């Protein structure tokens, strides 16, 4: 029997099914394309998760960049569609002091506050990523003199410094090893751009990916500021059945272990 009610129920079920199917495919796709962690954002970008919900993909930052560093992800770039990014090996961020790309952002996905010190824009505190040296393929680590990345760094001797070490192989030369200090590195990528090897031996990657976190359990005892964390610390003592007595007593107590 075909009633209106049966028709209605079937129609509703069919719509619900189609919406569920569509929603599943749609969300699977969006989830997949936004999962790319290896992407470098313009200075001042919110953390990736917030950036993806806040960026409206208008390209104002791209248009503001005088070096054509930034581009919007196109279909085929394998990056979250329409969002701005840069590839420093091609064009790095030249760290303009007036940071033209940030104030033009209409949605605050590029956050002015995160690149401001004392009410003035300060590109030196931006964190676009952090440079990582491949010590196996860096010719400075072979003992060949090269300080291309060190010289290219806009925060020379802060973000990249050279560590001198005797070259035991020749006995009379020095290694001039480039070391990145992640406290200062902005991730501009001028080092990656300057690197002389065929494929860059120094690469900028998003900070989240490689920067660790020690946690609360370790303190730099030699560092006054870090040591202060101990001033208000207090021990937390757990009392269990065996720790009620002192350890020695507890060990000597044979009660119940031996036959009488």
């Amino acid at each position, binding site marked *: 029997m075909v009633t209106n009610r049966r028709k209605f129920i079937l129609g509703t079920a069919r*719509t619900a099914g*189609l*919406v569920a199917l*569509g*929603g599943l495919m*749609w*969300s699977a*796709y*969006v*989830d997949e*394309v*936004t999962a790319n962690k290896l992407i470098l954002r313009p200075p001042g970008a919110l953390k990736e*998760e*917030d950036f*993806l*919900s*806040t960026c*409206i*993909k*208008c*390209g*104002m930052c*791209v*248009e503001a960049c005088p070096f054509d560093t930034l*581009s*919007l992800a*196109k*279909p*085929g*770039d394998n990056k*979250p*569609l*329409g969002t701005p990014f840069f590839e420093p090996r091609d064009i790095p961020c030249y760290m303009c002091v007036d940071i033209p790309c940030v104030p*033009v952002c*209409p*949605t*605050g996905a590029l956050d002015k506050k995160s690149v401001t010190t004392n009410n003035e824009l300060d590109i030196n505190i931006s964190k676009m990523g952090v440079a990582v040296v491949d010590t196996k393929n860096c010719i400075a680590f072979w003992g060949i003199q090269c300080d291309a990345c060190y010289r290219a760094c806009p925060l020379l001797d802060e973000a990249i410094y050279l560590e001198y070490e005797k070259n035991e192989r020749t006995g009379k030369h020095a290694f001039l090893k480039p070391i990145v200090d992640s406290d200062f590195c902005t991730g501009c990528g001028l080092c990656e751009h300057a690197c002389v090897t065929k494929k860059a031996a120094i690469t900028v990657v998003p900070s989240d990916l490689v920067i660790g976190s020690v946690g609360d359990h370790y303190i730099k005892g030699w560092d006054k500021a870090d040591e202060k964390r101990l001033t208000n610390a207090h021990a937390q003592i757990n009392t269990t059945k065996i720790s009620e007595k002192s350890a020695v007593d507890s060990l000597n107590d044979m009660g119940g272990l031996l036959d009488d």
Partner: protein
Amino acid sequence: MTNLYNNYRFLIMRRLTQVAIMILYIGGNYWGWNFIQGNLSSSSLFGTIPLSDPYAALQMFAAGAIITTNLVMGALIITVFYMLLGGRVFCSWVCPVNIITDAANYLRRKLEFNKIQKRQPASRNIRYWVLGLSLVLSYILGVTAFEFVSPISITHRAIIFGLGLGWAAMLVIFLFDLFVLKNGWCGHVCPLGAFYSSIGKIGLIRVDHNEEKCTACMECKEVCPENQVLFMVSKESLQVLDGECTNCGRCVEVCNDDALNFSIKKLLKEK
């Protein structure tokens, strides 16, 4: 010649508007013109007035992003503008995808596909479901769900910033509209169109039908991309009040009987 102009006057004006807007955006990107910069998602007029896609803003809100005043201002300006102007002026006068789907539709008419396939196998209400779904998905995934798949954004970004594989999206829409479904994308699926349909109901510019002059040739229904809104043709003298009307003016220009014309919405009901 005058006849040709009369029969295509709105079409020509629409194409000029669409192309001019894109050229202004391209100028803003490549040559630093300070007229309008950004793209259809969000732009800045004269470097000061913000303009933003209200549907994108809505998705951002659903995704839990912090909304700036700049964005709210931009979205409000656009919303009020289209609300007053009326039914989906964005779709037929600004959106670059309209050129693609109109081309598919034109070819469909010339190849007489519509005579083979008279009934369309899908409901025009799908778009409202897509609109709802996009907001739900934005909420669940915490990203602007439609903006990551939108062929509209792919197209205007392709025009302004460079193509990539964007041509594939355009081709898919063209083929879909040509072979699969008449007015498939713009008339059935597009949630942005659904959004503007919803806010465009209030709009003041309306097509007015005069039944006394109508000779029931049905040319208007043939060219109309949303022909359900023309239900009154040859039956009753009414204004087209449905928000789904795109105000493209094709019905007005193909009518040789002067039975369809643009008018201002009658705010008071006539007795």
